[in-house]
């Protein structure tokens, strides 16, 4: 079984190929994370996702320059194209 999986994954983008039609987690520049169903990708890691939930992780700083507890802003989008230059990583979710 493991040999079969290793044979299918011979280059990094193969793990993205195996995630087509599946839920994926993506970490983005600007303290953003995204989960969604993967429908398309290319070599630049441009992707198209559906049923997307985006989280923006924000640390506010008060007037004394002291960072406050981190907060998360969330939003849902039905269909989204993500440009590849902002992508840090993509991972299949179980």
């Amino acid at each position, binding site marked *: 079984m493991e040999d079969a999986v290793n044979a299918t994954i011979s*280059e990094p*983008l193969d793990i993205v*190929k195996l995630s*087509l*039609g599946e839920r994926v987690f993506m970490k983005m520049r600007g303290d953003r994370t995204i989960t969604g*169903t993967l*429908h*398309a*990708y*290319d*070599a630049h890691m*441009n992707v*198209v996702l*559906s049923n997307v939930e985006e989280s923006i992780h924000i640390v506010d700083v008060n007037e004394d320059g002291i960072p406050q507890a981190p907060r998360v802003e969330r939003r849902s*989008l*039905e*269909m*989204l*194209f*993500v*440009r590849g*230059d*902002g992508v840090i990583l993509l991972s299949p979710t179980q």
Partner: protein
Amino acid sequence: MLIFSFFKTLTDQVITVELKNDLCITGTLKSVDQFLNIRLDGIRVEDPERHPHMLAVKNVFIRGSVVRYVRMAARAVDTTLLEDATRREAHNTGK
């Protein structure tokens, strides 16, 4: 090439382009090129109070590299077709 073709299928649909400076522009997609530069007609900015300099602008050309996201309606996209095309492209360019 795949994503370029995908955007061509969205021509004349209303889409929202979110730029890397957080500006969100909604408009009708008129054309797209291989760099994913985008031309939008009849535009509206999501938060006009924050971007008053955009009020008079009706049509824009957006350089592909400043785009963060493009949001669109789910019914505008055939997801099965898109996945098949992606598999075919991965097969052809891969090995």
